């Protein structure tokens, strides 16, 4: 019994180490207020140094490397639903955002991007005359 377990542990580790990390699309919420657009992306296991955010023309791309179970050496991977993955997702952003004012906050595995709208794109109230 003991030896069987140990043998399978080594095999599991080898398989997991040699395979390139899977690339997956993270879950996202996108919402809008009068002042800004917001994007919230689920990036569990991604530390700040492993995260890149790029805005090229109108395409915003987020990529992050997630390591769960990284320090599990000497343990048997008895059950695994979330292995190391590369999260990557692109969004086409609206033209009316202030590109130099985008903010990013990473906390508890959730990346929240704030894309403020430029002033002339904010809605104005147009009075309606009743005749």
């Amino acid at each position, binding site marked *: 019994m003991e030896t069987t377990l140990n043998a399978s542990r080594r095999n599991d580790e080898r398989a997991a180490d040699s395979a390139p990390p899977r690339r997956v699309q993270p879950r996202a919420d996108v919402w*809008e207020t009068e002042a800004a657009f917001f994007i919230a992306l689920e990036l569990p296991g991604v530390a700040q140094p492993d995260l890149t955010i790029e805005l090229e023309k109108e395409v915003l791309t987020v990529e992050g490397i997630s390591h769960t179970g990284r320090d599990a050496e000497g343990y048997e991977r008895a059950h695994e639903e979330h292995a190391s993955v590369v999260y990557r997702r692109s969004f086409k952003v609206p033209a009316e955002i202030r590109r130099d004012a985008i903010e990013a906050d990473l906390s508890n595995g959730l990346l929240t991007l704030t894309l403020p709208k430029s002033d002339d794109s904010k809605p104005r109230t147009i009075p309606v005359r009743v005749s």
Partner: protein
Amino acid sequence: MPWSLFDRIESELLRDPFAELFSGFPGGRSRRSGTPHSVIAPLNVRLGDDDVIVEVVRPGLRPEDFEIALEENKLRISGGDGGPEPSEDVRYHLRERPRARFERYVSLPYRVDADRVEATYELGVLRIRLPRAESDKPRTIPIRTGTPAIEGRAERVTERTDAPTASPEETSTED
């Protein structure tokens, strides 16, 4: 083989019913297709000789949104929703993050020392370390020679007096 040690009672398989309603950023291309996990809170279990590490992957919560309960050798982890509901002045374009509560169970392969269980929540991953109870660790019984020969493997002998709660998988399927 060890997969069957862990129950997967998943009330969490319910998808966010609103997710399909909001597709596409303004003029955008993002869609729901390809979203990675069908489960709300994926679970990893690492089995060591002296402890078990259970990881629940559920970003965007606070530590106090989780509840961890241990009864005998059964671990239950449940968790709160995806944060406060936004105010009315908000228009959603895409809503994929799950709001439902989740509940996961793990049947531990051995007794653990409940007083020394540790949990941390970092980078959206809840990590629970459950040390194996000293009384549950296998003991080696020295075999004296000289007197009538005693044979056998002793490494699985324990001091437990009650009936073992281990699942059948622990004792079967030897190659």
